[in-house]
């Protein structure tokens, strides 16, 4: 039996999502961040354990639902079909577990949610919802609030960052700062327009973007400080807003942390080198890449970038006659000789990635499912033994995820078999091939995700939190619900950070119990899509 207890709420909660905000970076920049300083002095700041893998899609889905990735199923941005095609894994909208602001809405609380990653399109809420990165286009519910976004010049993100950072790092950082400032302004304007809101939840992505590029480079603080300062200004303004409230809390939550990257592990190159996979090399394509693309600008050869038809024709000729993987460069799974490939890796470039055994779930399989355990065992042993030079182990751990991630939201996707987790300061790239399987990081990978993000809380109601010195992304949804005196729903894996003795118990509402039961029933009845 689920007991739901509510009081007439006068509580205001501001949950500031900061993609990639990192505890150790904040500690290092703290003297120059007034808002974070106030949080440290008057509230609680600690590390936040993220998901496995430490990816935004996976971690934000857990933050919103309070459910482990193995249950919500959104464990990456992309997955692999049985035809080896790379498909998007979909957005949080498609998951069977409700997000916490939908639950709040069912109990009458009003939310302003701006840019929650992996939410598209904006769906019906009690309040306002602006879709989040990587939305293909901006989507707002109710649509009348789109006027405010147009007025402030709202943008989802800065596109093509890898190329832009290469050409103009300072200009790109300034553009990101502008996008983040507008996002903060939009959030306050939407809240004013809505009036009587209970939860404000903006998500800033600037720290993730700049740390990917800057961490691990000389003078990284100059760029990274700009990212944290925009968020800090929002925090200061939000704290001022709560100052006059009797009950209120401001939270900072990130989806993962960051670390500087020294080396990139090219997992597919390693699989080829060890005989688990075979590539269809193209010497022509290699020559072009080695001596033309990397030497003279290809745009010059293609008679200027504006001649798109010519460039497209050259591309088609390249695919027709020069297909196959280059000796060094980007490649696709179809560049493998699939019948001779026992295993291949795919997924987002990050410190944890996935390996699939090319068994009879795939069209051009190399091994029967009944025999794949032997390959798996060999792979695990070999991966754990990889050394960079003679000393360092590249791989920290290999997890058998065949049964863990068997619910991936889409029936056209094949579940991965192994998750490879790199050691500190390494990232894993499954999309690049080279004769060496350990290379220097790319322009946009001098920083990459780590497993420790940040949690912070301050405000008039901070004494309602229990004592803890570490928490996890799974704990956020139950905590927010408990703050509004809604008990943790039985499907959630997280543990509330609210002191159970400080729940403002008043009257038991049967109607709320029924609402929770109906949601539970719907989830049980939802078949795997």
């Amino acid at each position, binding site marked *: 039996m689920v007991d739901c207890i509510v009081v007439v709420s006068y509580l205001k909660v501001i949950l500031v999502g900061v993609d990639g905000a990192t505890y150790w970076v904040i500690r290092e920049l703290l003297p120059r961040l007034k808002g974070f300083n106030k949080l440290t002095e008057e509230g609680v700041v600690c590390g936040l354990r993220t998901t496995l893998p430490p990816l935004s899609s996976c971690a934000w889905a857990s933050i919103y639902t309070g459910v482990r990735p193995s249950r919500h199923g959104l464990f990456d941005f992309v997955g692999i079909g049985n035809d080896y095609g790379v498909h998007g894994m979909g957005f949080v909208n498609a998951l069977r577990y409700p997000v916490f602001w939908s639950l709040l809405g069912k109990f009458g609380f009003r939310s302003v949610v701006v840019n929650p990653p992996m939410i598209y399109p904006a*769906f019906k809420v009690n309040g306002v919802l602006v879709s989040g990165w*990587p939305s293909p286009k901006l989507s707002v519910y109710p649509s009348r609030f789109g006027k405010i976004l147009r007025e402030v010049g709202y943008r989802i993100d800065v596109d093509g960052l890898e190329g832009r950072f290469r050409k103009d790092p300072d200009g790109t950082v300034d553009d990101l700062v502008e996008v983040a400032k507008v996002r903060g302004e939009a959030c306050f304007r939407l809240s004013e327009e809505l009036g009587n809101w209970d939860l404000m939840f903006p998500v800033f992505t600037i720290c993730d973007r700049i740390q990917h590029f800057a961490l691990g480079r000389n003078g990284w603080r100059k760029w990274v400080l700009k990212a944290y300062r925009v968020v800090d200004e929002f925090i200061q303004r939000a704290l001022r807003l709560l100052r006059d409230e009797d009950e209120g809390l401001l939270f900072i939550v990130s989806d993962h942390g960051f670390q500087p990257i020294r080396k990139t592990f090219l997992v597919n190159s390693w699989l080829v080198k060890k005989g688990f996979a075979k590539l269809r090399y193209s010497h022509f394509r290699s020559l072009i890449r080695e001596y033309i693309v990397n030497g003279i600008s290809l745009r010059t050869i293609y008679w200027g970038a504006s001649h798109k038809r010519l460039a497209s024709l050259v591309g088609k000729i390249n695919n027709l006659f020069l297909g196959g993987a280059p000796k060094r460069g980007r490649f696709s799974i179809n560049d493998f000789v699939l019948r001779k490939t026992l295993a291949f890796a795919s997924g987002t470039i990050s410190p944890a990635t996935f390996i699939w055994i090319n068994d009879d779930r795939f069209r051009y399989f190399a091994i029967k499912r009944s025999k794949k355990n032997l390959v798996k065992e060999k792979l695990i042993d070999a991966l754990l033994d990889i050394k960079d030079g003679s000393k360092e182990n590249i791989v920290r751990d290999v997890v058998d995820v065949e049964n863990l991630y068997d619910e991936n939201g889409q029936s056209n996707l094949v579940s991965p078999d192994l998750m490879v987790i790199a050691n500190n300061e390494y990232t894993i790239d499954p999309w690049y091939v080279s004769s060496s399987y350990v290379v220097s990081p790319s322009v946009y990978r001098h920083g990459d995700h780590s497993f420790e993000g940040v949690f912070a809380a301050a405000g008039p109601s901070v004494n309602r939190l229990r004592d803890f010195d570490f928490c996890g992304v799974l704990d956020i949804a139950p905590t927010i619900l408990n703050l509004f005196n809604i008990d943790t729903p039985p499907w959630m894996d997280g543990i509330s950070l609210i002191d159970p003795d400080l729940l403002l118990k008043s009257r038991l*509402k*049967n109607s709320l119990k029924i609402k929770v039961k109906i949601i539970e029933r*719907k989830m049980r009845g939802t078949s795997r899509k």
Partner: protein
Amino acid sequence: MGEDKVAVYIPKDLYEEIKKRVDLSGGEFKNVEEYVEFVLREIVKEEEEEEFEYTPEEEEKIKERLRGLGYL
């Protein structure tokens, strides 16, 4: 019963079960009719939540955003 309502028949044992819950609700539900209407409205609201599928163009735009960040 108001003019804008219609009668729906339910088994008597179910009626009795609901009546017990109404009595235990401490006045939150005035009668069985109000309880049944509340439950049905909640279920209909849940069922109405729309399913959404992405177009191939939208999926390509999403991948483009991921590539733009160097994720793929």
